[in-house]
């Protein structure tokens, strides 16, 4: 193996953080929905995939990456709202497995719908013109788009944190995830809160799909491995914990990119092995509450 310089290592670390940013966004959406509704969204990978497709579609329609960046999460979130209202809501109180099973079936339908709409081969993507090229980070050149991924994720998660911690509605969300019964008694329409949280969670999934699109192939199957990977992140970080989702997302991204530097054939395996280790040492995840996991 060629000599691996310190600079290369740092660059690979940055690449890992850019990948981890996507994982963190996915896991934040998943954790938000779970923390509030105790629903594991098995269609999360499918929402990610729909986000990628719609992102490319809106980019073609409006010609502007920034318009697409606004329209895509709105559209995916709207699909999420419809799904919660008409498919998930009837299942509340029917056992914890049913919403999970339903969203699994939903992912089949979403995958097939995208195949009908956009064809079997998927759509070509490229990095938006404004974000092409490389920037010098002092450790070597780094693709601008990947740096943008890290920054954009920081902004999105920062905004979400402000919303949840600092606004009145965020207070209701936090209270509702702790004790929905009391919140309902206090006169809050908790069903609407759940609806909105599901919408936000799926919108973030769609946004992460849009952001990831220029770095990977966009096709109907792209969400299938992503679902498994976002589960890994959630289990490592601790279910329902937002800081856990962020830290674990970045960690998983870095582990993946470091393994692909030293032993590329084990890259996919490495993150699952990381999860197995966490399960052995700390079953509730890095930031999880002990009671929740088992």
């Amino acid at each position, binding site marked *: 193996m060629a000599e691996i310089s310190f600079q290369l290592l740092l660059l690979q670390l940055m690449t890992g953080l850019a990948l981890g940013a996507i994982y963190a966004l996915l896991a934040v959406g998943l954790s938000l929905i779970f923390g509030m509704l105790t629903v594991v969204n098995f269609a999360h990978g499918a929402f990610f995939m729909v986000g990628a497709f719609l992102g490319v579609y809106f980019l073609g329609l409006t010609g502007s990456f920034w318009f697409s960046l606004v329209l895509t999460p709105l559209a995916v979130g709207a699909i999420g709202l419809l799904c919660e209202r008409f498919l998930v809501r009837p299942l509340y109180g*029917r056992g914890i497995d049913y919403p*999970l099973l339903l969203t699994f079936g*939903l992912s089949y*339908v979403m995958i097939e719908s995208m195949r*009908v709409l956009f064809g079997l081969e998927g759509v070509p993507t490229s990095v938006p013109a404004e974000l092409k090229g490389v920037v010098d980070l002092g450790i070597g050149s780094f693709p601008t788009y990947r740096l943008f991924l890290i920054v954009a994720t920081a902004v999105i998660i920062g905004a979400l944190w402000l919303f949840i911690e600092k606004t009145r509605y965020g207070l209701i969300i936090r209270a509702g995830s702790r004790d929905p019964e009391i919140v309902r008694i206090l006169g809050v329409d908790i069903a609407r809160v759940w609806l909105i949280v599901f919408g936000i969670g799926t919108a973030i999934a769609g946004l992460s799909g849009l952001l990831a699109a220029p770095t990977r192939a966009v096709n109907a199957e792209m969400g299938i491995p992503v679902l498994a990977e976002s589960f890994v992140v959630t289990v490592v970080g601790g279910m329902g914990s937002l800081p856990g989702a962020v830290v674990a997302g970045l960690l998983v991204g870095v582990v993946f990119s470091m393994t692909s530097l030293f032993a590329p054939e084990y890259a996919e395996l490495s993150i*699952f092995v990381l*999860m197995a280790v966490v*399960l*052995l040492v700390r079953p509730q995840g890095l930031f999880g509450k002990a009671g929740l996991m*088992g």
Partner: protein
Amino acid sequence: MTKTAQTDFLPRATAFIAKHRVAAVLAFLMIFPLVMPYEALALNILIFGLYAVGFNLLFGYTGLLSFGHAAFFGVGSYLTGIVIIRFGLSWWMAIAVGTACAGLVGLVIGFLAIRTRGIYFSMVTLALGQIVYYAFYKAENWTGGENGLRGITVENFGIFGIQLDILNPLTKYYVLFVFVAAALWLVSRILASPFGAVIESIRENEGRCAACGYDVARAKLLIFVLSSLICGLAGALRALHLSIVPIDSLHYLLSGQAVMMCLLGGMGTFFGPFVGAGVFLYLEDVATVFTTHWMAVVGVIFMLFVLYFPRGIWGTLIHRWQARRVHAGEAR
């Protein structure tokens, strides 16, 4: 008078079938290939039915929703194929090896997965199952990687002086049927045992089961391994049937198929998984003629069942019959 006799017949018949459930299922499976349009479909339903039965042990009876059972199904398939191709083992030895290896993988995954509860269990089994998928995907020299494992041959053999042609689909069906029959008997035996009562009590109330002094963790691990053995056997049989092993056999989408078959047929019922596998594969067979978007059809049907018929086809029928039985009993 005649009315009473009529209302009495169905409950009595179902009670009789419930009492001799293994014999009833086997009798059905005996004539099954003769009524199907072609034997390949019957073979598929036989194999996937067994796969769903193994999965049902965990999902239907213990209440643990695993999304990693494709790992056991696939390991059963791959190891059966590998020992035939690489070591020239006879096919029935290979089935034993494949099944045993699936059980071993089940022991490892089960050991890790039962540390989590409820919904995490599903996520963790899914992710652990994907480890097996990627490991086999990368080990190209042994597994053929993306192209799958090819060239599993089964020699003809004689039994009681009769030469059997395994390439004849009907003969193949009845040869594999023998293994399915043995597995079904074992499953029925497990469910009828005190241990079977323990796993059902875990499903109903885990805390109370533990308070009664049962070692819940050990019971879960044991049923996990038993379930993976049954699924491994189904995988082994599929390797012999197809004479190839596609890499998809290990993917979590195939675990999802077990979930779908189980729920469509009726979870926690003895015959339900076969009904589910039959309906699923028959629908697939019919629908692919009309549309390439078969997954959407499956997804919609599955969602409708989750929403409106969570008992599944067979489960709903049994529920109705039982209600009538109670009704008839009251009338008397």
